[in-house]
């Protein structure tokens, strides 16, 4: 998504916890830069937006992409794992969006793209905090969209399906049957790739979606369509 936005001309600031990974990601983007921040800190969310606006003069697009997961049956999920997932996946998008509202409104509008998941519509026995957080992100998206439409701030969500990342590879290592199960159910016949999300991110960040707000776009190779 960041690469897609950069290729469309945006100046992209990447914010995450790992300095090395941040720097590598930013270096791969034309004009990209990175800031180290742990989004589990609510004050950090406000300071991050403040810093971007101060250093770049504006903030047009906010992509709430950071996410973590915690696996385990609900009865085994540790309290701190529940808190960490909800804080990073749901609270941080809210506090970042809230911080972005004033500068976006002042400059005449903006675009907020929240990364939810197809987990927002499916339950799962082993990732309850993640599923709850992603469903929350979808409802947060709808609520912010209705609240800020008059300020010309558009808020939408992307619902990724199964994507081939380090995170899902780790999950597949634990549950090898997942590989075939996902492939069998996905009409497109493959796992998603990070680059599959560039187009939808650019669409939701650009003037092409100026009358689109409060919606979620599923990007899953047809997984959800195959009932």
């Amino acid at each position, binding site marked *: 998504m960041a690469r897609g936005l950069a290729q469309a001309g945006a100046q992209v600031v990447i914010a995450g916890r790992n300095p090395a990974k941040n720097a590598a990601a930013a270096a791969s983007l034309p004009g990209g830069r990175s800031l180290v921040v742990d*989004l589990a800190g609510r004050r950090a969310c406000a300071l991050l937006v403040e810093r971007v606006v101060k250093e770049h003069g504006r903030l047009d697009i906010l992509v709430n992409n950071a996410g973590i997961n915690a696996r385990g049956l609900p009865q085994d999920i540790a309290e701190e794992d529940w808190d960490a997932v909800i804080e990073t996946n749901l609270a941080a998008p809210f506090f970042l969006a809230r911080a972005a509202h004033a500068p976006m409104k002042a400059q005449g509008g903006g675009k907020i793209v929240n990364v939810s998941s197809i987990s927002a519509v499916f339950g799962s026995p082993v990732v309850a905090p993640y599923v709850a957080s992603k469903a929350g992100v979808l409802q947060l998206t709808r609520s912010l969209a209705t609240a800020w439409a008059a300020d010309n701030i558009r808020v939408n969500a992307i619902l990724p399906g199964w994507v081939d990342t380090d995170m899902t590879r780790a999950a597949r290592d634990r549950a090898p049957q997942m590989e075939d199960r996902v492939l069998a159910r996905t009409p497109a016949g493959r796992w998603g790739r990070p680059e599959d999300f560039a187009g939808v991110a650019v669409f939701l960040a650009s003037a092409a979606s100026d009358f689109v707000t409060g919606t979620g776009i599923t990007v899953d190779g047809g997984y959800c369509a195959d009932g």
Partner: protein
Amino acid sequence: MKLFDLTGKVALVTGAMAASAWAWRAGWRRPGRRW
């Protein structure tokens, strides 16, 4: 107006995919953690 042109726009993107994966792995390796 160019529909998909983001020239001059400033975008803040949280959690590069790699950073998210790093968080997963870091948690996974922590003793007693089920990530």
